[in-house]
């Protein structure tokens, strides 16, 4: 959509500039999709080769914590979408408030994830940290390796997202980011956050709900 703001070199009109900005961000997001895509392919292969063991391993995960975390991320995405809407209307304070709310939900997600990892450590299910002998077999060990790598990589992305959203809120309240000229910065950070949400939307059923 067209939005207010200055046209910068080398663009001639605001719509063209906006499309180029969005295109750049979407191509970056495509590389993120491929990064996690490799992990998803590995999880699917393990599931096809060992259907029974994978379902048993999946049943031992805390699907309820995962469900709450999914709800938290979906709600934080709504907050970011509302922040972008406020930023487009040049309501800097309102946008900053929504961004802080989204970042706080992100922190809550990370807190629950940490709680979950500690529970899995107690149950002897956390690779690297737990005694390998406590896994029911090599397939469960492999599945939990993939679980730790994919959720860990996702948690790193959530952490980056929380820092981005928090920094953005500071810049908006401090007046360092002028609205609506620089609304694309809010939009691009929002896109990143939503993609991190989308990745979790797939990680959750694939890891926690294999039945």
């Amino acid at each position, binding site marked *: *959509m067209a939005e207010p703001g200055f046209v910068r070199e080398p663009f001639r009109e605001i719509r063209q500039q906006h499309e180029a900005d969005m*295109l750049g961000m979407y191509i970056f997001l495509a590389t993120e*999709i491929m990064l996690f895509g490799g992990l998803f392919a590995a999880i699917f*292969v393990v599931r096809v080769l060992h259907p029974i063991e994978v379902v048993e391993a999946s049943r031992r995960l805390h699907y309820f914590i995962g469900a709450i975390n999914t709800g938290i991320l*979906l709600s934080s995405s*709504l907050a970011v979408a509302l922040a972008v809407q406020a930023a487009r209307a040049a309501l800097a304070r309102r946008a900053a408030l929504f961004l802080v709310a989204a970042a706080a939900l992100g922190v809550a997600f990370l807190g629950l994830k940490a709680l979950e990892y500690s529970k899995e450590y107690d149950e002897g299910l956390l690779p690297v940290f737990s005694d390998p002998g406590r896994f029911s077999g090599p397939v469960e060990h492999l599945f939990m390796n993939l679980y730790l790598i994919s959720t860990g990589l996702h948690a790193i992305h959530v952490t980056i997202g929380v820092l981005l959203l928090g920094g953005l809120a500071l810049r908006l309240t401090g007046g360092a980011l002028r609205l609506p000229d620089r609304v694309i910065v809010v939009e691009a950070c929002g896109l990143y956050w939503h993609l991190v*949400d*989308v990745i979790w939307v797939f990680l959750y059923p694939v890891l926690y*709900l294999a039945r």
Partner: protein
Amino acid sequence: MSATRTLVLAWSALMCLLFATVGASFVLTGPWSIVTSLAIALAKAALIFWFFMHLREEAGLVRLVAIGAGAWLLILILLSMTDYATRPALGGMTN
């Protein structure tokens, strides 16, 4: 319909789909479980891309890039699966 209302409705739909996917995991097993949970996840992703990630407002080029990312991912996963799915039939490694 106001923009805020649209966004809140999209979020409500996402939460309903979350309940649906958890509910389905109690009822379905095996291939139906995978197909259903992936279909629900795809629907959620579509809602997020369309309403939250501005695809609704963008022109064809940006939409094409978004679909393109999914298409390459599909190639990666489907081609890997043709290998693993056909190995037992060829009498090769089954485990």
